[in-house]
């Protein structure tokens, strides 16, 4: 229990809040992007913005693995699920994500065999237990979940489980961050860096964010005091005119990451030349596919897949939310046409999605309900 309650201590939060306020330069507005959907969830679930001065604005980044899945890939997975003898296995977050023609839940209601699993190994077990079914695991997530998919595929290959395959949608964290910075349409002062991704990739891959773009990045844990301390650490760098990669989540993340996990990922997966991100468009070398020697377990090789690009609904502004350009309630359909029970955009689906987190937890009570749209001061 102390690993949870110890990181939710109100008195320590008050001290940190005072320290953060003390670092604000008069007249300056700070925009910090929390990359991870898990951070967004924490911020709203615990009411963390209550501790931040008005000058510090948190904007949400592209790190919710469900939110960045484009509609076309959902349709592709459903088309696989409709083929004979197929069992589609996926994480629970995915079942309500809308494609162009409905969600996995709709497909299940229409007769497709869709099952929620808790890990790729559970999907492999399904394939072993039900040898007459063709079990396809819908793999999603950043480098956090990719190694477990990789290990499962290797196990399937070693054990000759021929009725198991993976529909690979794994993505990588650095390309979207660079894409957001290259687009130069959001004045981000610094990043609350992803925690769980960094357990795998470590801290080194973020160095260009600091060195080339001049933005501080602090790898952060997911408890409210973790996030608040990370805000403090970014603010301290800004005050000291530094731009470095720092690790707040030292109890879990080490600088070099998990080299074994990275090695198994590289052994099984290779970068795709292009991958369509929900709302962000096509980003080169930002996603992973299975390597050719694993083709017998690659659903994209085994099944006819339409592969049709489906444009995001025009009303949906998920892309701008994922780039930090607008906050959830500024989207024109937020809370009206788009709600968690009838989501239009993916950000309203997963509990880590910025819109769902704000809709579920934050409505009415966020202190900066209409934050000033002032631009940041000149880069330090």
């Amino acid at each position, binding site marked *: *229990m102390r690993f*949870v309650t110890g990181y*939710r201590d*109100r008195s320590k*939060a*008050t001290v940190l809040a005072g320290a953060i306020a003390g670092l604000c330069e008069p007249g300056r507005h700070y925009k910090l992007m929390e990359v991870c959907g*898990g951070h967004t*969830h924490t911020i*709203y*679930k*615990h*009411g*963390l*913005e*209550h*501790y931040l001065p008005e000058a510090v604005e948190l904007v949400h980044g592209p790190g919710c*693995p*469900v939110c960045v899945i484009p509609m076309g890939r959902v349709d592709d997975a459903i088309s696989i699920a409709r083929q004979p003898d197929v069992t589609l296995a996926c*994480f*629970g*977050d995915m*079942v*309500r994500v809308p494609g162009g023609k*409905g969600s996995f*839940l*709709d497909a*299940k*209601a*229409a007769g497709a065999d869709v099952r*929620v*699993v*808790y890990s790729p190994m*559970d999907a492999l077990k399904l394939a072993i237990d039900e040898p007459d079914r063709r079990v396809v695991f819908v793999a*999603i*997530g*950043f480098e*956090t*979940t990719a190694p477990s998919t990789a290990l499962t595929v290797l196990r399937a290959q070693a054990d000759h489980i021929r009725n198991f395959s993976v529909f690979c949608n794994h993505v990588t964290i650095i390309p979207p961050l660079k894409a957001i910075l290259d687009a130069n349409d959001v004045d981000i002062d610094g990043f609350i860096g992803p925690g*769980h991704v960094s357990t795998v990739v470590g801290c080194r891959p973020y160095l260009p964010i600091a060195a080339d773009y001049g933005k501080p990045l602090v790898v952060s844990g997911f408890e*409210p005091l973790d996030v608040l301390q990370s805000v403090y650490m970014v603010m301290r760098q800004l005050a000291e005119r530094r731009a470095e990669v720092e690790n707040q989540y030292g109890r879990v993340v080490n600088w070099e990451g998990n080299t074994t996990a990275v090695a198994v990922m590289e052994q099984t997966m290779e970068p795709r030349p292009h991958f369509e991100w929900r709302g962000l468009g096509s980003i080169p070398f930002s996603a992973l596919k299975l390597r050719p020697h694993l083709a017998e377990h690659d659903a994209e090789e085994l099944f006819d897949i339409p592969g049709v690009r489906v444009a995001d609904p025009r009303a949906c502004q998920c892309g701008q939310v994922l780039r930090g350009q607008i906050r959830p309630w500024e989207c024109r359909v937020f*809370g*009206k046409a788009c*709600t*968690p*029970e*009838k989501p239009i955009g993916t950000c309203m689906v*997963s*509990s*880590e999605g910025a819109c769902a987190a704000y*809709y*579920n*937890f*934050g*409505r*009415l*009570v966020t202190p900066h309900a209409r934050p000033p749209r002032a631009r940041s001061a000149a880069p330090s």
Partner: protein
Amino acid sequence: MTSRTRPVRRARELSGAVTLSHGSGGKATHALVETVFLEAFHNPALAALNDGAVLKVAGKDLAFTTDSFVVSPIFFPGGCLGDLAVNGTVNDLAACGAQPLALSAGFVIEEGFPLTELARVVQAMASAARYVGVSVVTGDTKVVEHGKGDGCYVNTSGIGLVDRRATGLSAAAACPGDQDIVSGYIGDHGTAVLLARGELGISAEIASDTAPLNGLVAALLDCVGPKVHALRDATRGGVATVLNEVALASGAAVVLAEDALPVRSEVFGVCEMLGIDPLYVACEGRMVAVVDGDCTDDALRVMRAHPMGRNSAVIGEVRREPVGLVLENTGFGGSRVVDMLVGDPLPRIC
């Protein structure tokens, strides 16, 4: 103040097909009830949308309720399908302020279901009914082909006599100044069943809280009488969902204190690991009582003195605004909205 998004009642809810979300007890279930059932069956007793209907019969208030029970696995730590089927209906009656008079039991059994297991379920029902002091006086059995059911489903209906001090009980009767009391630890049942499925590889000593609450309600009414404004049996959708029902029906707000929520450390740990909020996890032996603020201490004392309410706690209060919403003051010092459940609570991916 931003206006609240009310449950959708438009016809677009009728498009498509029934999905598992419609059975979660949350928003989709409410939308289904409102758009399909309420519309078709419209009548004053149903429209109150309480846990049971209250009918005037020969000058007395008769409570009538029905519930169907589907659980996997059928046997789990702390109970089984049979206990749930009796206690669930007894508790729906109790939430109407009624003591049970008689129950019915309907069984839908899948071909191939072991007779020994059926007997265990039925014995558990008999034992639970004996404990409450109610009889199962009528029933029905149907058998469906193998593969057309999930072992065994049970429906129970119950009638009960409403305590004369409880005739005003309704979620709509909650008013500003009232206090919300829950009769014990929350989330035990849902967590116990989730772990009993064995899919998560987590082991913990957590048992279902399935229990009859008619005695607890009688003791509460003996003590504070009509100062109990609303009772809700927190089952599917958890405490959060029933409090949302109270907020919506009464047009008031419910404000919870996270620090006050009684959650066992084991349940808290499992929920934290899975990214699930205990407020949304099912209970099967927990009553949420909304009582006049003047009598909170008395109500809490009598509930804690009862064997089914030893861990009762005041978890929040009813306020005037924001209309129709449940808020929580977080232990961390912030505040957040506690919305009605959307779909089933599912573990997060990372």
